[in-house]
């Protein structure tokens, strides 16, 4: 394993190209449900940074010899052990007012899929330094998205920013709801993907141009226009479409497997063996 990877490379890849929220689509639940305000997003981001970085470093330092079936529950226990005292301290010893929703979703940060994925697939297979770099890069990427989403949702959904009323003439309550966040994340993901393709994409790769809408052809409708010379006809059963040369991933397991292969290729490209020998089935 190579330790000569700079933090800048890890930051670009972990926070941008493989952004956990926008590209890998992991850990969406707290983002969608709880990042309705800037303050809430900041609390979620801080919790994620602390929990993910500490868990990945501990996993890299201590869990390499532990069997896999034991490791995964340990990640969750460590995450909760880190988060719950902080939450208790904020509740009882400070004057910070946390809403009921935040109280629910901050512990969920400890057991979200970002932690399990990055601990199991990277931290336990690499050095502590690389594990720290990876966790920090992923935390920064996820936190940036959370803060941006929280800012936009608070401005348009509540008409305020960080609790300060902006006196906007129109407020879109839908932006405070989960569907508003999902639509916003979709646009952000599309924008990030376009930026990645523009900045880091393969120049030989040409985008397939979508058909022009006005030239769109819709089949099987013309026969319905004239009604006077028609009669009912039993149509033959539809033939099953021929399988494509390369099947697209359909199930969640296949999609996850495909995503893992992408991550593996990325880390190999920067000189890191993604799996240890004999680890990959």
């Amino acid at each position, binding site marked *: 394993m190579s330790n000569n990877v700079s933090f800048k490379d890890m930051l670009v890849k972990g926070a941008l190209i493989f952004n956990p929220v926008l590209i890998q689509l992991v850990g969406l639940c707290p983002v969608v449900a709880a990042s309705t305000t800037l303050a809430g997003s900041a609390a979620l981001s801080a919790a994620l940074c602390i929990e993910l970085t500490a868990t990945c470093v501990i996993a890299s330092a201590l869990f390499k010899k532990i069997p896999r079936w034991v490791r995964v529950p340990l990640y969750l226990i460590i995450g909760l052990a880190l988060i719950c005292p902080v939450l208790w301290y904020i509740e009882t010893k400070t004057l910070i007012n946390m809403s009921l929703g935040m109280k629910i979703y901050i512990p969920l940060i400890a057991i979200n899929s970002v932690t399990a994925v990055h601990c199991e697939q990277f931290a336990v297979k690499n050095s502590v330094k690389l594990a720290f770099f990876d966790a920090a890069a992923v935390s920064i990427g996820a936190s940036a998205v959370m803060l941006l989403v929280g800012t936009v949702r608070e401005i348009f959904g509540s008409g305020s920013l960080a609790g300060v009323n902006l006196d906007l*003439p*129109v*407020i*879109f*309550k*839908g932006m405070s*709801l989960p569907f508003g966040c999902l*639509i916003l994340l*979709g*646009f952000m993901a*599309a924008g990030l993907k376009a930026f990645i393709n523009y900045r880091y994409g393969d120049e030989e790769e040409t985008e397939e141009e*979508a058909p*022009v*809408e*006005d*030239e*769109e*052809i*819709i*089949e*099987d*409708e*013309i*026969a*319905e*226009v*004239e*009604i006077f*010379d*028609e*009669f*009912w*006809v*039993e*149509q033959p*059963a*539809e033939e099953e479409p021929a399988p494509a040369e390369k099947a697209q991933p359909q199930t969640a397991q296949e999609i996850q497997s495909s995503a893992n292969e992408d991550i593996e290729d990325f880390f190999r490209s920067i000189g890191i063996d993604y799996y240890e020998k004999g680890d990959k089935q």
Partner: protein
Amino acid sequence: MANNPAKQNTIKGSRIFGDYLIMLAAPCFVAAWYHGSRFLSVAAVSVITALFCDFAAKAILGKTFHLRDFSNIFIGIAIALMLPAGIPLYVPVTAAAFAVLAVKIPFGGALHAPFVPAAAGFAFISICFKDLIFDYSVNSETRLLGAESLGSMLSKGKSVYISTANVFDIIAGNVAGPMGTGCGILMLACCVYLFVRRRKALLATIGFVAACAVYAAVSPRINASALTSIVLELSAGSLMFAGVFLLTDHATLPHNGINRVIYGALCGVLCMAMRGAGVFEETVCFAILLANGMRPVLDAAFRALPSVSFKRKEAAEK
């Protein structure tokens, strides 16, 4: 293209939306008759917003903007018809912009969108501006029930004794409600036109209306006869309009004819269930969006069922 035999049995997408625009002429006339310049201004703002958003988005994406793409005009007019007369102009602007930018453009156009853009736009503003969307107090002084709409009345459990004196007002849309969707007679006329032009699409409308009628008869919200419940439920809000214009959207209809009936019935049950249990007076757009999401499941689940479709004689002989 004309020499390609595979594409001779086809029509362009603009023809479908052209048919919709022809069908929309009558509801627009009625809305302009009842509400005058108020409807015209709302419709104009909505259509211009849809056209501008489509133009801007295609300019950003580097695609060609076609004015013949009638889907923008259809989206704008359909949204305007479902709104009350006293609506502020920023509401149709929001709805049209959402329909085009968040539903139509990201999926490659109105013929590819998995959700009906106009329904999505109306659902969005229903959530964002609930108090404005269901305020029918403007231009309602001379209506049958004053400023109270049928949907509001049904949600409160209040009924109307239907007689020959008032039944025509109800089915002609002379009650408080959306500007251009309350006239059931016109909706039936539009169904006839749709039957001539795209009869397979009408299967979804049939399933939808039948399911709504059965649900209203079996589980009425008011203490009245089943027939009264059916008439009032079908006449309330934009139910019939959505069943004719939005539910028959080509991109979201199932392939199989039987699936279309099931799809419409599912949408009707969802709509009536949400009317009874939900917080919104008008739920048909939410029901359509939910049914849109279930359409691939329907296509997959009922793929094995036999299909019967209309074909011209010579096409069948070939």
